[in-house]
């Protein structure tokens, strides 16, 4: 089985690796609800962090727990997995300050699907704040103490350094992988890329590195095939819906980059070494491209998008938003204005548990036709 097949299996059976890993190593698995947290520290503790996700299936099991008209479909889908017992294997959950929708999942999980360990990192929202890093470092110190108390062991600098190295390597490899999407000839499709990115959040990062190296070796031997179609950027709310990406691909859209927290943004920015390891990790969290909620007071996301547009020669943008996602809803007008001033058309789609194929087909086809015509 080649590396891409393994990636495909991981994504299609998102719980399998963690369960097998637990049996094999006897280690602990922690579910995480946001990409903006100190994974290196968790990894250094010998824990496997896995991103908690929805299954993109309709559900009605959360209605006693989550106010349906107040919280996004992803949050409800995610918690539904917990209620259905699909995350029985996790030993704990960690939440890092982001949106209240994810926080609702964390709070309900703690209360109704009890785990051995839970922790909320009350990180800064306004990452540009002068004092945000110092505040975050002290929060991470408390978090480290909490982990050590739970595990009954110390997390030493050597372990943190090793974790940082593995994660930085992973980011470099992913940057190379993502780079292939920009090329005129590409051996990987966006569906492949999306699955590769998602797989990294579900398995041991060092094993992900091995798979990435294998994929890069395979790519280097291939000339790839010319990909046609308007060059698209995908961005918006958390989105692990492969069907949507496959769908866009099938209609002739050529995705060259994304800004999903379950995609490209997750792998952005390396940890820059510092004597204080927690400060180094905090530095990365402060400096990486932010999600809308952390992009305060200045809008730095748009300058990041400007860079991506230029690097990837983006011709059109598809903005996908989870139903009830007010974080991305509040940012949309500014993002739309930015792309329009660049002369780049943008299409907004509202996601739910499943992809409304008929509606999306019409809109995406029309959008692609418009892009092709111009």
């Amino acid at each position: 089985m080649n590396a891409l097949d393994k990636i495909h299996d991981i994504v299609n059976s998102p719980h399998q690796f963690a369960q097998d890993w637990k049996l094999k190593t006897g280690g602990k698995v922690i579910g995480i609800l946001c990409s903006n947290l100190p994974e290196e520290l968790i990894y250094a503790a010998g824990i496997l962090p896995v991103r908690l996700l929805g299954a993109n299936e309709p559900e009605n099991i959360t209605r006693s727990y989550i106010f349906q008209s107040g919280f996004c479909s992803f949050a409800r889908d995610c918690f539904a997995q917990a209620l259905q017992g699909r995350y029985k294997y996790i030993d704990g959950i960690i939440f890092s300050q982001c949106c209240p929708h994810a926080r609702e999942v964390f709070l309900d999980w703690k209360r109704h699907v009890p785990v051995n360990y839970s922790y909320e990192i009350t990180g800064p929202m306004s990452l540009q704040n002068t004092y945000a890093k110092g505040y975050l470092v002290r929060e991470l110190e408390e978090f480290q103490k909490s982990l050590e108390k739970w595990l009954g062991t110390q997390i030493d600098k050597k372990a943190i350094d090793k974790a940082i190295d593995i994660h930085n390597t992973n980011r470099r490899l992913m940057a190379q992988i993502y780079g292939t999407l920009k090329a005129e000839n590409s051996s990987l499709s966006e569906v492949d890329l999306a699955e590769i990115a998602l797989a990294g959040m579900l398995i041991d990062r060092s094993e992900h590195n091995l798979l990435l190296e294998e994929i890069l070796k395979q790519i280097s031997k291939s000339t790839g095939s010319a990909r046609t179609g308007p060059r698209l950027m995908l961005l918006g709310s958390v989105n692990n819906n492969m069907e949507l990406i496959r769908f866009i691909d099938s209609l002739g859209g050529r995705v060259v980059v994304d800004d999903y927290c379950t995609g490209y943004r997750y792998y952005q920015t390396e940890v820059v070494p510092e004597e204080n390891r927690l400060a180094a990790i905090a530095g990365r969290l402060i400096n990486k491209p932010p999600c809308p909620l952390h992009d305060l007071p200045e809008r730095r996301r748009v300058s990041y998008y400007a860079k991506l547009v230029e690097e990837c020669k983006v011709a059109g943008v598809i903005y996908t938003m989870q139903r009830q996602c007010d974080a991305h809803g509040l940012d949309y007008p500014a993002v739309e204005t930015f792309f329009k001033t660049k002369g780049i058309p943008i299409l907004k789609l509202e996601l739910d548990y499943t992809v409304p194929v008929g509606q999306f087909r019409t809109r995406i086809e029309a959008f692609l036709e418009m892009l092709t015509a111009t």
Partner: protein
Amino acid sequence: MTTKGDFETRSFSNEVWSRMKELRRERYKLSFEAQTKGGLCVTGFAWGYLPLLAGFGNFGNPSPGTDFTRIAREGAGSEGLVKFVNLAESRGLYPVCGAIAAHLGQVFAGTSFGGSTGNKIMPDFVFQPQGCHAQYKGGQICADLLGLPLLVIEAPFKNTANSRSYLYSQLAEAIEWIEKHTRHKFNDELFIEATRHDIHSRVMWAKICELMKAIPAPMSYRQAMSLRLPLVAYAYSKGTAEYMEMLYHEMQERVKNQISGAPFEKKRLAHEGLHPLYRPDLLRWPEEYGAAFNQGEFMMAFGSFRYTSDGHRIPGQTLEERGIELKSREDALKALVEQRYPLEEENTDYDSPEWRTLHFLRMVEDWHIDGVMVHLARRCAALCLGILTRIQDIRQAGIPVATYEASEGDPKEWNESRVREDFDRFFDSLGLKKIASLDGGDSGADE
């Protein structure tokens, strides 16, 4: 209402009502005049740490829009909230909570800082302290639209030394930021005075809320929403501090003489969540059934409280009661930080469901509440965080609880017959019968 009540009701004095209205007018006038008279003008959505701004002298604060209250009353009318919510949605702001959409719609319409006087003002910057995620981002959108700098101050949920230090540093830096961006000079004496008044006003409101434990309660929830108005955005003024003392003394008299805020208290009820701003009359619906809303988290929201070790809420202490004298900028900054994070409550997570449920149950116990009506605000994740679990806990504690769905700021989410049915069913479950009609009117004034 002409049915004879169980309790004597009496209007609050003319002194109290007049003074409240004077303070309201004073603050409203400041929104327009402060800048033309050389003062600051700021906008934003949330009213925290205003003493800091008062350190720059008189300032205008048209937040969230000079005519928001009037527009809220219009509700679904042609110049009401729905017009502005629709405008915000048409500009791509969806889904967004009703209140933020209504505010931003006014900014889009260019009516946010002019109002009915016809004057036009342009704030110096957007001040967005301590609020929910939608308020932070809403502040950013406002800053974008108006081309203004944005000052964000965040206060984390947990009461820790780290949070205190973070908030202190931000507040100290904010002074320099404002000086740099506006060229106004900060005056420590004005800041110290404003901080003193702010703390005093909030402590007095907490003491007023404590008097609501009396049976009958000397003030209804609806009356409180009007009478506490100066506290919301003007707590830092000497006038408000003195007004709160006046109101407190009058409340004490009312308790002594058994004067009630509502004619009946067959059931004492709490309203949980922010009520629909365009339908304040809802807060008087229980009176049609011989009951009254006496309490709720939002009633106490602007007060300064402390918590006992077993979760009871008690009024905070004034600086005088704590034996603290503010002598410097640093003292005043520390006082503001400690108002937010009392030292004796170290390690409290003010947003945790456990904390919120415990204090809610204590409130029910201490204020002798017989039932709770919860507003499930659509599109408001912040207000509805953990709410269904909290409702379950309240129910399990044996407290009758019911819900209704609407939006605090978007009248399109209001369905009168459905909400009425929810209320009627609740009252029925409490054994109440309709005894009167409010004749469709609402007034924060006494009838």
